[in-house]
């Protein structure tokens, strides 16, 4: 019973019948799977086209089994049971990502909604991103529907977690809905409750049109596709629209809703969520957070925008083949179109050539961008070790913002500031000791500790951001047998005793290896990198000393012994072609070497030495 005839008509839908909501949860608690059931129950997807996590459309999302981009879908629904049974409604559902790096995606989805389905895995209970996303939803004044998912699991404890969840959102345990995204149990009731519990959008249908841009995506076939939520008024396909921040006016080529494929429509009215295409090729002309109005009858005031996401970590991306530099620029420009959080500017490295210093929301974001650049644009890249941003104040009062450690200023440094993060760790109380030990070792300051239930603890810390972006989550996971979850958000900066460690090959600094670290960790960093390089760099015709230094003080040293034999001393008879081809292959290999002074360093050595051993893709995940 998906639709009531007449209700689901974009541009002519009574705003009282519209419900805009997003599904928010900790990573892997089953948002996309629940969305699948909704797509099926509302019959917007042809059963033959259905596949698991239908809305995870990108290859990289499907391979990793995680959502990276939010997806909005319009679905018709008629209340099946109970009060108001038979009432028709139009639901705009947004499936959001759960990983901490993509909190920004969640925030802008929230701004297009009146309500949120807060999903919790009934076998896991509340986790760090459950809290983080709930707080975000509350800040946006959304109505929350608490839902336990995966009740089909033998390990599910719906009663226990219903209580926990009710405590958290401030409702009665009976008000917590129970579903299984896998079997579909409880999902029709959930849809009924969404219509009953969530408020309809309010807006002035007669006022000048105002629509909030909450996403903007570049599509190679259609150009820039802009996703909007209409707040006031009405946009019709014949209108010329105006971007309120720039005043730029565009012809509308297409207007429509996503259901879950694009469906053209004549108009969009109050409360509706849809897309528009103007033919502009540059997403920057269609900025997320901007307000769209109509040129002939423009609104006076724009809607409140979004804060631009601030990159938390930086890394240099360099093409392995220097001649790919223009392609890398073009590829970054294209990705940027869909990803406001990605920032980059050209930089050059003596060791790596020309590349870009790129800012990311976190390590998973970095990893995904690098993978997309390599996969979708066929580039071979080296990424330098990620770092956070430092603010250096010199004795003369001059200030330098350092996003690349090799640009750390020389001269008298008065003070160095590092970014900090407010960290929330949720774990069974058995692990409190070991978590505290870990946080203390990372210069953490305990802010507080709360029991969510008899055996579940929330620990709050301030930690230097630089201490958590690398292997912190790995460490946390292994020390808590996977039971801890982690969330963090930026929390300003603090002065710290930081030093820059340089790595020298045969006396020459290799800029790509310079790092800014706390003075107590400098020695450790120096010896680790020097030892790694000693193994990774092939022996040369001469001895190569590897040194780690703070300024002119050497803190660690390794030596690569000179190679003594590099000659094929075998009887090879008349097969000279093979020998020549072997030589040519070696010459090719030599070309792929990066020269540091006279030292030939293979690309692989850079890649391996710069790789942090942990896999960022797991950050924020908890044990299954």
């Amino acid at each position, binding site marked *: 019973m998906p639709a009531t005839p007449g209700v689901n008509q974009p541009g002519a839908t009574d705003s009282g019948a519209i419900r805009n909501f997003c599904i928010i949860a900790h990573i892997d608690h089953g948002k996309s799977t629940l969305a699948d059931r909704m797509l099926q129950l509302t019959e917007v997807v042809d059963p033959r086209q259905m596949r698991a996590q239908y809305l995870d459309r990108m290859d990289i999302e499907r391979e990793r089994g995680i959502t990276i981009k939010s997806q909005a879908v319009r679905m018709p629904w008629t209340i099946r049971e109970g009060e108001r049974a038979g009432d028709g409604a139009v639901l705009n559902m947004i499936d959001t990502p759960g990983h901490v790096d993509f909190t920004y995606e969640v925030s802008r989805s929230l701004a297009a909604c009146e309500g949120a389905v807060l999903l919790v895995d009934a076998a896991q209970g509340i986790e760090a991103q459950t809290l983080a996303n709930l707080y975000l939803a509350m800040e946006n004044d959304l109505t929350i529907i608490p839902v336990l998912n995966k009740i089909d699991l033998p390990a599910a404890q719906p009663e226990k977690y219903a209580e926990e969840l009710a405590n958290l959102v401030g409702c009665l345990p009976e008000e917590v809905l129970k579903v299984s995204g896998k079997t579909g149990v409880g999902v029709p009731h959930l849809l009924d409750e969404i219509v009953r519990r969530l408020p309809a959008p309010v807006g002035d249908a007669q006022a000048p049109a105002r629509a909030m841009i909450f996403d903007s995506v570049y599509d190679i076939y259609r150009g820039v596709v802009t996703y909007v939520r209409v707040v006031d008024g009405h946009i019709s396909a014949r209108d010329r629209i105006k971007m309120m921040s720039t005043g730029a006016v565009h012809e509308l080529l297409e207007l429509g809703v996503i259901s879950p494929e694009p469906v053209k429509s004549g108009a969009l009215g109050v409360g509706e969520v849809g897309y528009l295409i103007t033919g502009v090729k540059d997403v920057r002309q269609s900025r997320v957070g901007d307000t769209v109005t109509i040129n002939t009858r423009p609104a006076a005031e724009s809607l409140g925008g979004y804060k631009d996401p601030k990159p938390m970590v930086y890394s240099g991306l360099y093409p392995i083949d220097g001649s790919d530099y223009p392609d890398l620029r073009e590829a970054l420009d294209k990705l940027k179109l869909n990803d406001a959080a990605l920032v980059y500017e050209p930089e050059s490295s003596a060791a790596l050539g020309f590349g870009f210093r790129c800012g990311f929301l976190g390590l998973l974001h970095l990893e995904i961008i690098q993978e997309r650049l390599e996969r979708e644009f066929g580039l071979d890249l080296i990424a330098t070790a990620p770092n956070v941003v430092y603010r250096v104040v010199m004795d003369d009062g001059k200030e330098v913002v350092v996003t690349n450690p090799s640009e750390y200023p020389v001269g008298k440094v008065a003070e160095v500031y590092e970014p900090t993060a407010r960290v929330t760790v949720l774990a069974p109380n058995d692990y409190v000791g070991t978590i505290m030990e870990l946080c203390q070792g990372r210069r953490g300051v305990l802010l507080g500790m709360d029991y969510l239930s008899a055996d579940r603890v929330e620990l709050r810390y301030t930690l230097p951001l630089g201490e958590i972006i690398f292997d912190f989550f790995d460490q946390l996971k292994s020390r808590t047998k996977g039971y801890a979850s982690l969330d963090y958000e930026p929390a300003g900066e603090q002065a710290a005793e930081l030093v820059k460690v340089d790595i020298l090959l045969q006396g020459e600094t290799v800029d790509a290896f310079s790092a800014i670290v706390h003075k107590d960790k400098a020695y450790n960093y120096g010896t680790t990198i020097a030892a790694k390089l000693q193994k990774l760099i092939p022996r040369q015709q001469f001895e190569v000393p590897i040194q780690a230094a703070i300024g002119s003080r050497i803190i660690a040293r390794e030596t690569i012994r000179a190679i*003594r034999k590099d000659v094929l001393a075998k009887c090879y008879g008349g097969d000279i072609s093979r020998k020549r081809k072997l030589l040519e292959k070696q010459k090719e290999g030599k070309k792929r070497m990066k020269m540091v002074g006279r030292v030939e360093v293979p690309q692989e050595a850079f890649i391996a030495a710069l790789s942090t051993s942990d896999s960022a893709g797991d950050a924020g995940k908890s044990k299954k």
Partner: protein
Amino acid sequence: MPATLPDGEPMPPTGELPGSALDGAADRPFGVYLHVPFCASRCGYCDFNTYTPTESGLDQTDYVTAALAEIAFARRVLGTDRPVRTVFVGGGTPTLLPPGDLARLLAAIDDAWGLAPDAEVTTEANPESVNPASLKTLREAGFTRISLGMQSTAPHVLRLLERRHTPGRAAEAAQEARAAGFEHVNLDLIYGTPGETAADFDRSLAAAVAAGVDHVSAYSLIVEEGTRLAGRVRRGEVPMPSDDVAADRYLAAETALDAAGLHWYEVSNWAADDAARCAHNLLYWTGGDWWGIGPGAHSHVGGVRWWNVKRPAHYAKLIAEGVSPGAGRELLTGEDRYVEDVMLRLRLASGIALADLRDGGPPAARTALADGLLDPHEYAAGRAVLTLRGRLLADAVIRDLLT
């Protein structure tokens, strides 16, 4: 001949050469290589194109017939009369064939082109596959030089290498060869075998010297893909030979051989004098022409390199049909020839003229000189010639000269 063949363009069935390949052919030295693809058993390290009697799919008489047919085929393709300056019968183990067969094959080569009066005629031989009588027959048939695979005198090394002969047999065979009238005798040594000590190798060198030969080849053991040795190394049963050890052994070889009056003339080869040097190999290294007869044999004529199919039975079938047994060929460009020239000549004691170096070559030569890899006297005289340390880093110097 290593086991895998290079990639190249297809060989025309007629074996016909582009006209340019034969231009001025009469003025270039010409040799014949004859590949005998049989061994009594395969040594664990060896990836040469050779087969035990059960593997080959071709019996020895049919092989001889096929090789005789290819000699005739070669004569037709080359057309012009060209005295053969060098003949090299290699393997495999040529001396698995009855000496009479080797004699017939040599006679066929002589009939086809005519041997030059002072031609060098070498056969490889395994120590256990010759005796005074067979050596005498070979010498009388016109062979002037014999090259014996000694490898080592250390029993545990021979065992690891899976050699069939006793430690003393190679030196003994060398003496028998000299007694049979061979003026030029070579012994092959392999160094760097896992488990071989410095003293083991010193003793092998001393035994080679004591055998009174006028030529020694000393090769560093290479673990070739697909060999039994490679399998054992992969499984961790045998350690990978170390390059540092190989460098030490090489220096030991240079010291012992030079002291015995055998002087290096190529990275892996030492000879008593000019006449003792292997003229056939020098022809390979200086861009000469030769036709390679037999399965998997490589040839070069005037800038065309080609190689025969590897499987003996396949080879015999093609040649019986009057079709070229060539599996592929390569027409060298000017650049290819230059690369080969630097690659091969720099390994020789005669080196390469500095004036012949192109592009980045001259500055690279200056760097190599400064690094002690090129001989300063030779450099002053206009030649790039490797020093002892340079010989050990020859591949690196070659890569540098070619950048």
